[in-house]
């Protein structure tokens, strides 16, 4: 389907999503190898407060590593989801599994943020947003599961 006003088609939109996902993947790889630099920089500029005073740089490095791994898993599943959609396999059990994994990755990243908010309370905000997004993904997954069920019912109605 092509939008008459913008000339933007479904296929182009899908390609853009895939391009962005691949770009994000490379960004995450870069972050993985520069985690200590980012943490040091954060240590210099951060003026916030936390329950634990020492070892901020080490803690932030660890946090970046953990969250980065969750993010890579989530992005890999996003990529899988997009390739399935490109193959016209939308409402399948595999896709709902992908969404479930993505949602859990976000929730675990949120839990990681809560733990590391012991060093800096600001991470609580990140934790809140991660948990919220995780919940949204979860509801989306529930909707998807129902859609998979309805589709199989429809496919087997002769």
């Amino acid at each position: 389907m092509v939008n008459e006003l913008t000339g933007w088609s479904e296929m182009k939109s899908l390609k853009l999503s895939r391009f962005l996902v691949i770009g994000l993947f490379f960004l995450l790889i870069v972050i993985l190898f520069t985690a200590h630099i980012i943490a040091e920089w954060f240590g210099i500029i951060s003026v916030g407060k936390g329950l634990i005073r020492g070892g901020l740089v080490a803690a932030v490095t660890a946090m970046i590593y953990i969250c980065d791994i969750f993010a890579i898993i989530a992005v890999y599943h996003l990529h899988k989801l997009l390739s399935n959609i490109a193959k016209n396999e939308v409402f399948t059990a595999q896709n709902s599994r992908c969404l479930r994994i993505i949602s859990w990755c976000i929730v675990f990243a949120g839990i990681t943020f809560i733990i590391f908010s012991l060093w800096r309370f600001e991470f609580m905000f990140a934790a809140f947003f991660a948990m919220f997004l995780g919940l949204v993904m979860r509801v989306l997954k529930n909707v998807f599961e129902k859609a998979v069920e309805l589709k199989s019912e429809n496919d087997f109605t002769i």
Partner: protein
Amino acid sequence: MAIIVNLDVMMAKRKISSNELAEKIGITAANLSILKTGKAKAVRFSTLDKICEVLECQPGDILEHV
């Protein structure tokens, strides 16, 4: 589910092949196979109507409850 599709019995009586029946009803051979093997979850009244029309029988001749 306790509903059995006896389509093959009726087809044998009328001496009609699967492909021919599928063509006359207007469904694909794959879908007819789903119906015959009992994998179908539902049958549309329009499909049932055409099957009865082509095979000259009643719905009770094709579907059985056990």
